[in-house]
Structure formats: C-alpha cells, structure tokens
C-alpha cells in the first residue's frame, strides 16, 4: 500500500481551491500555497526522475512502508516509489490495462495488483504517470516492512532489469513490541549491507551529519502532520481523515520526508486547517464544503484508487466523515509519539521501520483502532478490504469482530481493490454503505426515543 502526493489524478487543482469559501476571499491564498507546493513537489520529482540520467543522478527505488528517504538522500539518489507510480496510474485509469498486460505476461489473476500494475508499466515502456519516461533504477532498496510481496516484487524487477538489489529485512512485531534483538539486526544490516551498497552504487560517501540534518526536518514535518490528523478529534471535524488524509500524507510518505519543502508544506497545511477550525468548517470535498457531519467513521484498509472520486462521493453524499484511518499510518505511525531522532540516526531509522502499521501484530492493530474509535468519538468502524493485499486483509474480519465487541459500536465490511478496476463494484459497495448508514441512523433514533 502506499501513498501519493497527489491522488486527485489529472485534475488536482479542483481539490484544495474548492476549500476557499466563496464568502471569505482572504483565506484562499494560503490554501493555494499548500496546493501549489504539493503539486510542485510531485511534478518536480517525476521531472527529476525523467532527467536523472542527463543530470548524472543515480536512481533508487524503494517502498513506502519503512522507506529510508533520509538515508537515500544522503547519496543524492533520485527517488522512485513503485507503489506511488502504480496508484497514480490507477487514478489516471491506466492501471487496468497494465494489470492485464502483466497477466498476459504470465502473472496470476490472484496476486497483488500493485505489482502487476508496475510490471505492466514496464512492459509498456516505463512511461510514468505524468507521461514522462521513468528510468530503470540503479538500486532496489528492498525493505520489506509489513509485506512479503515486496520481496517478490523486487525479485521480479531484478529478473527483468538485472538491477542491483539490497535487502533490509525488518523483523515483524510478532509479540507486539520491538526487541533489542530486532533493532540490532536492522541497524547491523544498515551498517554492513545497506549503506555500503548505496555508497558503492552512488559513488557518494556516507555522511552521518547529513543524515541527522534530514532527520531534523523530518521530525518537524511529522509534528505538523500529527497535529493535522488529530484535528479530526473536533466536532465537526475540519478534515477527512481518510480521503482527505491521502492528500496530507503524500509528501511525507514518499520522496520528500526530510526535505525543507516538506516541512514547509506541513506548516502551510497546518495553518490552513487552523483557519478552517476558526471558521467552524467541516472537511472540503471535491464538490465543495461538506454541509453537515452526520456520521463519524474510523476506516481500516487502503482506499480504491481507480474510482477514488466515486468512492468518496458515496460518503460525503450521506454526510459521512472519516475521522481516523489506519491507512494514513502505513508510511509511519507518528501519533503515539515516535519521531525521527537525529541524535540516534540509525537506531531511529530501525525504530521507524519496525513501527509501520502493517508491521504491527493483530492485538496492536485492534488496540489502535479501538483507541481511535474512542478518542475520535466515532459512530462506527468501516473496513475496506482490498483483494490485493494480504498484509492488510488477511484477518480483517477478526478486527471487525473484536472492535465491535470491545467498543459496542457497529462495524461494516466492503470489498474492492487498489488499482484493479475489475474489482470495484459501485452498486455493491453503495448498497452496503447505504444500509450501514441507515442502520446507524435507525439505532440513533431508537436510542433518542427511549
């Protein structure tokens, strides 16, 4: 699973400016700032990748959960994130064809569609989401935090392109906590395998002070991100913590964590939300202000990208706001206090990888959701189960049962896929969501009646 800086696809601009309330023309400047910044960031990254060869830059590829962006920057890599490419292609409705192509190339219908979308893109000549060609990576940094499929993914890429691969094995929190043995293991791999390989491929010597400096920036941005996501604890919530959050987590989960640009983006974002709170406004949607907050939900599982707008609409049309989601934690769980720590750089990187959402065990995931249900005063839990993703999906029904049991709040279950349009059945999902909202309403009326 992964994130994008700009999942609104081809028409990103409609998103944020719509937040500019027509009556208050003074506010929009700042908002457009954030939007402008975000767009610039994403496009800048794709341009950098497209021109990496001319610029004499080496290219790295790595995954979102447990990505070592600060470290990669120390070696001047242009940074590509295949999951982001896949989701961007999904939002631009290009992924369906890519997946089919990968299946024709021998891949099973059963496996993760992110992988197939990526391989399909290669088969089509590596043209990236923005239409610019993407270079073949010089190194694949395989940190398989939270998902085994990552490992196969890069083995497949290596099979095709013969890229150098470096493995960072991040152990799983099977017992619900990080042990010293795990930390040592990750740090040792960083020192003995990852850093030497990156040095060799890039020709740049590792400078730990550079790393520290990036991590200082990371921590600042993380602070503002957490503030933004937690603003949803208010009633009404000024943000949508799932559909909206996808925009907010974009920069920090991808190639920008640790850059001053990202820090600036989050400061701007925070100021914007503060203004919304002062104005007593709810979240903005692609169709403008959300009029009334009727339902507050916690969502578990990644969204669907191919019909992202349509999916979101099913929520705001009914007045449903997502106040918290686990997906907005895939690229790092920051809301329980973890920050990148410049004083212990490698240990802190290890800690970060070990703490990603899908690296948590089930009791931890359930605790986290129950906590959200409580702290964000949610009416219920909604699970969007993704066909592709065993890492999220295998066992979600137990989460549903346990959360229902522990919080006494109703939970609902829908199914779709990340980037495979064949698995998004709008009628089916709408039917379930409607039933769910009507059920919450009926219960509420009944409770009010006695």
């Amino acid at each position, binding site marked *: 699973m992964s994130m994008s800086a700009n999942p609104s696809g081809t028409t990103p601009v409609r998103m944020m400016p719509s937040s500019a309330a027509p009556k208050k023309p003074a506010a929009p400047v700042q908002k457009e700032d954030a939007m402008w910044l975000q767009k610039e960031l994403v496009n800048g990254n794709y341009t950098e990748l497209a021109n990496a060869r001319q610029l004499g830059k080496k290219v790295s590829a790595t995954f979102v959960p447990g990505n070592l962006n600060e470290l990669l920057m120390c070696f001047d890599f242009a940074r590509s994130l295949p999951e982001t490419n896949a989701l961007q292609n999904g939002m631009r409705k290009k992924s369906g064809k890519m997946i089919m192509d990968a299946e024709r190339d021998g891949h099973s219908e059963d496996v993760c569609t992110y992988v197939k979308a990526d391989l399909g893109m290669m088969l089509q000549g590596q043209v990236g989401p923005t239409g610019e060609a993407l270079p073949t990576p010089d190194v694949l940094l395989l940190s398989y935090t939270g998902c085994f499929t990552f490992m196969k993914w890069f083995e497949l890429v290596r099979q095709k392109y013969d890229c150098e691969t470096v493995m960072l094995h991040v152990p799983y929190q099977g017992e619900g906590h990080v042990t010293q043995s795990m930390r040592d293991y990750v740090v040792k791999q960083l020192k003995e395998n990852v850093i030497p390989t990156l040095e060799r491929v890039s020709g740049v010597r590792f400078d730990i002070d550079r790393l520290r400096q990036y991590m200082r920036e990371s921590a600042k941005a993380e602070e503002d991100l957490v503030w933004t996501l937690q603003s949803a604890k208010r009633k009404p919530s000024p943000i949508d913590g799932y559909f909206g959050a996808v925009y907010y987590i974009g920069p920090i989960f991808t190639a920008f964590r640790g850059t001053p640009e990202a820090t600036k983006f989050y400061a701007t974002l925070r100021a914007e939300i503060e203004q919304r709170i002062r104005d007593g406004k709810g979240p903005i949607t692609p169709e403008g202000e959300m009029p009334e907050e009727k339902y507050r939900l916690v969502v578990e599982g990644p969204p669907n990208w191919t019909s992202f707008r349509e999916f979101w609409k099913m929520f705001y049309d009914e007045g449903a706001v997502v106040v918290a989601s686990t997906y907005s934690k895939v690229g790092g769980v920051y809301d329980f206090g973890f920050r990148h720590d410049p004083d212990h750089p490698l240990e802190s990187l290890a800690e970060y990888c070990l703490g990603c959402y899908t690296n948590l065990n089930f009791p931890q995931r359930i605790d986290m959701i129950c906590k959200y249900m409580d702290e964000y005063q949610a009416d219920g839990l909604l699970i969007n189960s993704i066909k592709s993703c065993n890492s999220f999906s295998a066992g979600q029904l137990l989460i549903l049962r346990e959360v229902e049991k522990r919080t006494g709040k109703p939970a609902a279950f829908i199914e779709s896929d990340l980037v495979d349009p064949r698995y998004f059945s709008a009628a089916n999902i709408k039917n379930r969501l409607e039933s769910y909202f009507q*059920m919450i309403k009926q219960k509420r009326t009944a409770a009010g009646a006695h």
Partner: protein
Amino acid sequence: MRTFIGIDLGSTTTKAVVIDEARNVLGRGITNSRSNYDTAAAIAKQEALVNARFHLFREALSRSGALNGALEDFLAQLERDFRLEQFLEQLGDLEATCLRNAEGTRFGEAAKGVALALEKLFALLKAEAPEQFAPGAKRKSDFFRDIAGSRYLAVGEQVAKDAGVRYDMLLNVFDRSIIEVENRVYGESIKRHLLAALDRSFGFLKTAPATRDAVRAPIQGMLDTALEETYVVGTGYGRARLPFSKEHVRSEILCHGLGAHVMFPHTATVLDIGGQDTKAIQVDPKGIVESFQMNDRCAAGCGRYLGYIADEMNMGLHELGPLAMKSTKTVRINSTCTVFAGAELRDRLSLGEKREDIMAGLHRAIILRAMSILARSGGIRDQFTFTGGVAKNEAAVKALMELVRENYGEVTLNINPDSIYTGALGGATFAWRAVTEEGKTAEKREETREKAAQ
C-alpha cells in the same frame, strides 16, 4: 380504505405486501424479476392487490355467512378459476406473439410449417389448461413463464415431430416471445377475470342460484371498494431502479430485519438467502438492526445456484428439495460456485453417486456458506428466523436445522410459509410508520406514476 404497500425488488423475484391501518396483512403478490423493473414492481403490486381482494372477500363472506362451512373450498376454487382465466388470456397473447415472431424470413421455407405447428401446440395447451388448475393439481411454479414454458417444451417435442419441423425452431420462437408477454401488465382485465371466474366456480361447484346472489353481492361490493395506496416503500436489490424518490426507499437489510421482527417478535438473528445474496442480520427486541453481514462479491451458494442446478437437472425449483430429502448418504460438495455447479454435478454422477445424495450435499454446501456468514455477523441467537426464497426449500431447511444444532445447540427456528415476503412486509411496515408515526404523505409525482402503472 387506506393501504400501505411494501415492494421488494429482488434479483430473481419481486414481492409486494399490502397492509391496512391496523397492520393486518391484506395481500401478497410475487412475480419473477425481469428486465423491466417498473413492470416487475407493477405486477407484483397488482398481484398483491388482487390477493388483498380475496382476503376481503373472505372477510365479507364469512361475515355474511352465505356459504356456511363451504367458504374455504369456494374461495380456493375461485382463486384457481381466476388464475385459469388469467392464464388463458396470457396463453392467447403468447400464441399471437409466437405467430407474429414466426413470420417473416427467419425460418425461410419452414415458416409455414412452424406456424401450423404453433397452432396445433397452442390448441393442445389450451385444452389441457383447466386440468392444470384443477383441485389438487401440482404446478411447477407460480409464474406464467415457467408453467407455460414447461408445458410448451413437453408438448412441443411431439408436435414438432408430427409436423416435421425442427424442435429448435419452436424453442426459439418461444424464447423470443415469452419476454414480450411477461412484460405486459394485465391491470384492466382483473375485474373481468374475477367475474368470469365467479361464474366458472358457481358452475363447477354447482352452487344453488340463491346462494349465488348472496355470494355475488358482497364480492361485487368489495370489487367496488377502492384500495387507496396511501404510502409505498420500495426495497431490495433493485431498489435504486424503482421509480420512487429516496424518501420511499429503504435498505433491504432494514426491511428484512423489521419484517422478520413483525412476523416473529422475539427474533434476534435473521438469515435471508435470496437469489444473489445471503444476509445475516442481528436485530434488537424492537426490530432495529444491530449488525449485518452479506456474502462477498462471489455469488457462490446463493439461491441462483439452485436455479442453475434445476436447469441442469431439467427440474423445477420446487422439486429440488423433495428430491434431496430422499437422500440416504452424505456426499460432500466443496464448491458452491454457481457457474460450475453443473460440472460438479456431472462429475459426481459419473463417479456413480446418486442424484438425491448429490442434491443433499449441494443443499448442505449452500447452508454451510450461510453458516459462515452468520458466524461473521456474530453467530446465531435465540430466536432465529430464516427468510427468503430458499426458506421454502425443505432440504435447505433440514440442513440448516442440523447445522444450527451442531454449532449452537437448541435454538428456536422460525420459518414462515410466507417468508419470501419478509422484505416486502418490512417495507409495508415502514410505509405504515411513515404515515402514522412520522405524519408523511406520499409524493404527488409518485402517486400519478403508480396510477399510470395500474
């Protein structure tokens, strides 16, 4: 009088229930869902209103005591005669449509022969029709498509042989004509049919002339009473396509929960197996839904599965359950993939398993899937109500009882003979509540549309 109507537009059948101000069920109607949702809804509602009139006849006649003792027999005969009248009209319609469809160049030289064969065939069908509606006669289904279809196929093979035309051609004409006929609404002929049926029944039962008048008067009176459609609520799989505004639509989950609660006030868990989905619903003592689960996107193990099996075995849906009940041995069927049901069946038959044993295994497999969905929704609590079309199937019920006992011990299992109407009953109850509790009135736009459909 004021009535409240619920319409449940399901994936395979469309059901309607009419209730009165005291929330008594006046009538129920059912038809197969078809390509035109408006028509399906209109026909189901019309059937329910006809059924309501029979209900009212029964009340009026028992008040007047005109038939003392023979009332039930008389009404049963009247209903059969009414169905026969309806059937004959539709059959006539089908004949005309078939003849029209057989014309032209499609069959080339064979066209003449086909037309002759059709005439012969329909003459036979008309002649045997009264037999099918005779007391005690068993019909394959309640729907014209199925009744007429099965007889057409049966009689057609011989007719084709005698007439020297290809059986395939007759099949083809039928296939293309039946859709047109079943999409016609016969609203205006109800009164005529009823009066004709009344005469038929009098003749058949040799009713004395004096009694005839005593019976005819209250019936005529009831026929003249207008049934006001005070409020209509739509639900079901196809509800989004109903010509209703959002105000008049409820989710089928809520309707099934409430319907089951109305039928059995102590219901805690509801299982509904419909054509394309299986739902498990938990309701509180007031009939309010607490949680629900449905099958995922795979349609394996739902009612349609039985439809495929019935097709494969060349049997009616009504006949599957009884066949499975004859089983003496369990055959384990693992795949409930609807599409491959036929292949699985053939596979087993070729391994020498008996049909009834395989059938029993298939029914158990469906119920096993339902048990998982129930477990997903939080398990079975007392009392447990089974609704939906599959609840009519005795083998499915048997398998369910066994599995419930194995997994949850003794639990009261409620099955209403009218369980297929549960969703519609819930809808009707919501309609009643909307008016009596929330003071709503039906929207103008919809009223006029409803009238037009009638």
